[in-house]
């Protein structure tokens, strides 16, 4: 369960900044996948980053009573001079994996399917290989809640299918909080929805209601 109470967030530019998120109060229950929807700049990614602990709120509390992943597929943390294997080991160690580290590496290797390149420096990878590795790394850990930002999820067709299957497999044991503009994916993977609008968040128990509401409000404008 993730609880958000009285959350405020703004970005500090040179001339101050507007509130991106204002007085957000949300509770994400266990085992319910949630889609975040809203216009560009409504604060979807910001909220996701705040939940993932990559960013700090200006006011308010985020209480994580679950193991929350980093945004899936974010490849920023790889060191180019180190091999894929070394990078995976590093992330595993940060997350407290000790005895089973080889097992975890094997899972990443199986998922990423980049062959021998796994033992070559990450700087030699293509962007597709990079995202395969990043994706495999996120899915190798057993988090309770996975975060996913559309912008970071890329890959070729076969890989996308594989990623989707992996997600569907996980839905039983874990939940997902995702940002996406593709309504098909949202309807497939999520049960509940959160609509972000003008800094406020509205919770919908059914993702279809959320999408409908989003259509109505964005249509009028």
């Amino acid at each position, binding site marked *: 369960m993730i609880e958000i109470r009285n959350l405020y967030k703004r970005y500090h530019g040179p001339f101050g900044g507007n509130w991106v998120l204002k007085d957000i109060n949300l509770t994400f229950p266990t085992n319910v996948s949630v889609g975040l929807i809203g216009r560009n700049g409504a604060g979807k990614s910001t909220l996701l980053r705040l939940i993932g602990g990559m960013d700090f709120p200006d006011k308010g509390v985020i209480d994580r009573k679950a193991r929350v992943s980093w945004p899936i597929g974010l490849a920023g943390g790889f060191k180019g001079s180190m091999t894929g294997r070394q990078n995976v080991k*590093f992330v595993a160690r940060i997350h407290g994996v000790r005895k089973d580290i080889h097992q975890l590496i094997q899972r990443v290797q199986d998922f990423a399917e980049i062959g021998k390149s796994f033992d070559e420096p990450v700087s030699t990878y293509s962007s597709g290989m990079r995202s395969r590795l990043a994706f495999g790394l996120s899915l190798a850990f057993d988090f309770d809640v996975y975060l996913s930002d559309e912008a970071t999820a890329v890959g070729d067709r076969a890989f996308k299918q594989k990623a989707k299957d992996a997600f569907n497999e996980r839905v039983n044991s874990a939940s997902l909080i995702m940002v996406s503009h593709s309504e098909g994916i949202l309807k497939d993977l999520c049960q509940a929805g959160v609509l972000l609008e003008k800094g406020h968040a509205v919770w919908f128990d059914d993702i279809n209601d959320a999408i409908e509401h989003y259509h109505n409000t964005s249509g009028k404008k």
Partner: protein
Amino acid sequence: MNNVAQPMPHEPRSALRVTWDVWSAMTLREFIARTTADRMAWFWMIFEPLATIGIMIFIRTYIRSSRHISGAEFIPWLIVGLMGFYLFRACMTQPIGAIDANKGLFTYRQISPVDPVLVRCWVEGALRSFIFLLFILIAALFKVDMSAYHAVGVLMDWLSLWALGSGLGVLFSVVAGLVPEVGRIIKMISFPLLILSGVIFPVTYFPHQAQEYMLYNPILHGLESMRMNYFQYYHSIQGIDMTYLWYWALSSMTLGLMMHIHFAPRLKMR
């Protein structure tokens, strides 16, 4: 994939355990990055001080022709000072780039900006200590006696210089994170500091009035104290006081850590 046993620890880790996991993982990463950055990384780490020592010996022998340091052989005297100074400098300047270089890692919320900084201080110090030991061995091969007169004292002074460098490194890593220009200035002043700390020219050569001002520089205290412990008959100037150095080390470390706590969100977001 799901029927494999869960490799991740199931219970939430304590804050200390998380910190320990992060530090140990980052230490390994930093060591690998530092020693295998390119194939010459190791070579330069040893050759750079070696070349400096070679040039200094050349200058002292052929240009100034006064090789006399009261109470100590010139080459060991120079190696001790240079190694101590390099230790300080590495611990002070390397952490400045640490936050920027590890920006991608802040994706993982376990890592806070102070972690790469502290890890770099520790890794740099460990590498420099290793190189110092290596130089003592190399010197022994050249029949230059580099055994310390008061080894425990030397060790304490070495640790003091390490602490001083790390304290300033932690402090400057925050300041340079907020005001990037500071980082450049600090790298610029490291050469004048080399002269002012009496690394190459003995501090006793300077006029008495200059010496009084030079004593404000805490590095000088560390280096001279280390040399006095190293060479039995070495004489330095009056007023060398390790307590003064530790004031600097501890107050800069405290201030630095406090600033790290206060500015953590800004450093992470930049």
